[in-house]
């Protein structure tokens, strides 16, 4: 489902003497449907960078990143947008929303974007928010004022609102208590069972051991870090 071939990434800092920083070179791996792969490696090894490249958030300088039929490295913006809407979900570490939008609408939005009716989208959103223990009295409020942990759970609810064929999870269990961590892990297991191909970053080793089928150490592909 997700396939990387000889992928490399550099940052060119034009405003700092045009310094060129090589962050990742020559990554190749594949993730099949129903499989969950963990990216590991020390802080700064480029785990998040690689994940952002797969999402199309960072530009890739060389190689090919195939998700389904689309090579995201060469794709037009509108194809990437379509892919993100229909195929590729992403749970980032930070919630980014329009101020003032109620939590319920934030979670329902990915469903509304693909034409699900208001009623069905809200029903799904309510179920997820309930599952993730967000008190019902908060649903009509904007999540911008929520605590870090609450925001993270809203973010997860939004990310899991749709059954994406491929998912990227950046620290989905960080800053969660045991009960909510359990909910998230079971959501991941459900997604796997449905056939989602998942790439995740988990600092939580127990979580990693439980949901991941394989680990890929990104430091092998980090120039200056490997060896």
């Amino acid at each position: 489902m997700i396939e990387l071939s000889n992928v490399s990434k550099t940052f060119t800092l034009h405003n700092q003497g045009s310094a060129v920083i090589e962050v990742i070179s020559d990554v190749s791996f594949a993730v099949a449907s129903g499989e969950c792969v963990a990216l590991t490696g020390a802080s700064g090894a480029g785990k998040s960078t690689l994940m952002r490249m797969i999402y199309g958030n960072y530009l890739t300088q060389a190689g090919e990143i195939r998700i389904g039929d689309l090579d995201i490295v060469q794709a037009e913006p509108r194809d990437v947008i379509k892919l993100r809407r229909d195929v590729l979900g992403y749970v980032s570490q930070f919630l980014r929303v329009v101020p003032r939008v109620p939590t319920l609408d934030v979670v329902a939005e990915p469903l509304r974007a693909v034409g699900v009716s208001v009623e069905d989208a809200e029903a799904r959103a309510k179920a997820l928010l309930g599952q993730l223990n967000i008190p019902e009295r908060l649903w009509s409020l904007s999540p911008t004022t929520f605590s870090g942990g609450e925001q993270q759970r809203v973010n997860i609810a939004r990310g899991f609102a749709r059954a994406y064929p491929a998912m990227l999870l950046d620290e989905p269990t960080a800053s969660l208590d045991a009960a909510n961590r359990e909910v998230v892990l079971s959501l991941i297991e459900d997604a796997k069972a449905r056939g989602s191909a998942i790439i995740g970053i988990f600092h939580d080793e127990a979580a990693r051991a439980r949901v991941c089928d394989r680990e890929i150490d990104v430091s092998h592909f980090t120039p200056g870090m490997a060896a």
Partner: protein
Amino acid sequence: MTPLLSVQNITKRYGAHIGCADVSFDLYPGEVMGIVGESGSGKSTLLNCMAGHLTPDAGQVVFDTRTDGPRDTITMSEPERRMLSRTDWAFVHQHARDGLRMGVSAGGNVGERLMAVGERHYGDIRDKATDWLGRVEIDAARVDDRPTTFSGGMQQRLQIARNLVTGPRLVFMDEPTGGLDVSVQARLLDLLRGLVRDMGLSAIIVTHDLAVVRLLADRLMVMKSGCVVEAGLTDQVLDDPQHAYSQLLVSSVLQV
């Protein structure tokens, strides 16, 4: 898939000074594109060339019309172009005063486009105007009030209602949130997002506010000195800018 708008090599000079130079891009149905750049970068010139307010010195602006398919709007006759701008196009000005008739009631402002395309039933026009006031969160009881009695945010929302009442497919916006309070901006952005999604609108938004494009635009073009220096997916351009100027622009924004 046919692009809704295909801009090809648009160039506009003001004497020796370059307004915008050799700009090309395709906009597909349902896409929202942001154009950012500092004052004088040519983004407003480009917008006005596309919307038919300025005649470019070179280039084509091909719009996929409902009846005749793709047509170059620069060479089409003025009546046709003006008809487009009343029906399939909308233009939201930065200053609501430029886009509203300040001496005409809110209902009359919204109804004008309907009457311009031939609606002649007062009751229907008024019902539609009232419905649109509701959609932009203006109390229906204010349908007979003039926009002079409205706050800045309300005026801007009224301008949007006036523009969208004929169900356009393409909306040009020039700094739609400029000059508004931050809280009013947020409300307007949320409203615009909802309308864009529910009506399947395509939009081109000129702004210097990167937060606005991050929230509204799927794609982004960065302009400097009349030229497009970088274009791509909005979050990609903002999070991983490639051009020196884009990097400077992104790093210049104060983090809140």
